[in-house]
């Protein structure tokens, strides 16, 4: 299935060059891949994985391993950030 991984702020460093100007990285992943699998597969450091959204909905840390992605899901991740 096709999903999109979006990595922002300092997590942009984990994107391939061609995705750096959009922060969007579309990819094929096996059925049943969870949010936790994606974080592990791309070796995203735990201290930088803070705000995790699937299709804009917040995924709390305890649900990341259980939340399976489905076709066309957009997984977006930020390190600790804030604004105003």
């Amino acid at each position, binding site marked *: 299935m096709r999903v999109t991984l979006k990595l922002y*702020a300092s997590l942009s460093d984990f994107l391939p060059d061609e995705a750096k100007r959009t922060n969007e990285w579309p990819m094929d992943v096996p059925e049943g891949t969870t949010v936790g699998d994606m974080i592990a597969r791309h070796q995203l450091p735990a201290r930088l994985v803070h705000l995790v959204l699937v299709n804009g909905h*917040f995924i709390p840390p305890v649900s990341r391993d259980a939340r399976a992605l489905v076709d066309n899901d957009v997984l977006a991740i*930020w390190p600790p950030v804030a604004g105003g």
Partner: protein
Amino acid sequence: MAWTRKILRVNLTDRTCKSEPLNMQWAQDYLGQRGLATKYLVSEIDPKVDPLSPDNKIIWATGPLTGTMASTGGRYSVVTKGPLTGAIACSNSGGYFGAELKFAGWDMVIIEGRASSPVYLSIENDKVEIRDASHLWGKTVWETEEAIKAAHQDPQVRVSCIGRTGEAGVLYAAIVNDLHRAAGRSGVGAVAGSKNLKALVVRGTLGVGNLANPKEFMKVTYEKKKILKENAVTGQGLPTYGTQVLMNVINEIGAMPTRNHKDVQFEGARKISAEAMHEPRESDGKAQLVNNQGCFGCTIACGRISKIDQTHYTVVNSPKYWGASGGLEYEAAWSLGCANGVDDIEALQYANMLCNEDGFDPISFGATIGAVMELYEMGVLTKEEIGIEAPFGSARALTFLAEQTARGEGFGKIVGLGSKRLCEKYGHPELSMSVKGQEFPAYDARGVQGMGLTYATSNRGACHLRSYTISSEVLGIPVKTDPLTTEGKPALVKAFQDATAVVDSSGLCVFTTFAWALSDIQPQLQAACEGDWSMEKLDLMGERIWNMERQFNNAAGFTRKDDDLPPRLKNEAAKAGPAKGLVSGIDKMIPEYYELRGWDTEGRPTAETVARLGL
């Protein structure tokens, strides 16, 4: 230095300046800055006064921690009755001016009356003079600061002044210090302009002293700075990416007000985000962002310093804009960009520089342009009237209208009225995205329900800084709540409003609260200020300040019906994202909020509430 215990009272009509002792009982009850200056204002002016008349007063106020070694202790506020709203106005600024005013030995400066010709106020410690400013009238903020520094032969002098928009009475004119830090909202600059007051110019050399417990203060401020440094948001996130990092976050959650709130996601958000500011441009290979910058005593340093693309159409023939200058913060990038559908980040930086250069609020200006563009697309406004074709997405229209507004020319005069008056003038009051006449900031009330209540009940008109529930609803600070529900939001909003009122009265920056709780600020106040500064006292004080502001607004004529959102947010559901199908639940939240506040069904504090708070 905690309080200097001195107030400077200046009457511009009589051209008198006198020193008064600070009312220390009030200082115990209202702390400083926002709370204390508001107490003075509401005690001295008629709530029904015309904000632009000589009978209105305007106060520059520091907090007890302003000028101290507490992190971010450089803030000051400008408090007055606001011309954009007719409500209480209190605009907070950073930079270095606030600390300088404290170093000169003043807790606050109360300005009364109206000068018969342009003046500025020169303060050098105890030496205070009202000086002629005829030669500065008509000058921008940047020109004014340069001219004053040259005239005083002192590059260290700090200037808090208005640009041409403040002189012209643009209803959202700001007061700017240090070239690009601003008491930005509610038109405080227009009040200064109405008094023929161009600037406050301060040099203070009295230093810091008068702390209740200096040793303890040094110890506790050091400990609290460590928390800011070690916290990932205040230690790394804000300094590196600034507030602008929110652009993609808020877009992703579908709470990005776009094209005058017609949409909740902006397809061009990535192009105007913090990430875009960091990457090399195709034209010159340089990133727009040059570095970050801190206000006085700040160990966070969230400020943006940017350089515009010199080949951009806006500046190709204007080298004065080529240097490093205040860069885009999230609110400005949103209002100048998403609110109008404009995704040209260099055009946004140019418009942002004009807001700094001539002192006007980018939030209200940008949101007003959003309304202009909608009226243009509806055929209500024409190219002939505006002076340019102005469909959503037109960077040229945005920058043209920013220039016109800055100079007070052509259609810029109408834009300077703000969206409420502009939309009323053209027969579509419902298209003004505002509360109490002040435009919304950068969060859609359908996608973040708590912000709808924040806007509706903010005492200075729509504002995010009165209760920044984004912290909880989006970022999970201190706990994560669901942005899509109204449940629990009245209590959340009330808690944020009361706590923020204390922070705004202390001299510290509200951004510390991404890492600090009020209980981290409390020991700093306790060490600096004489008296008891328990958490219970601070909690009650926050509530007292909020209710005092509310009472002023009620007396000024505001009622229950003014605590409302525009029909678009209540009737037109979000079209996409997590909030798809949702409208704001404001009508559900208001009664519960009033009850929690101890107000009657019309939004008036009950006699019991008034007595409990000692109002």
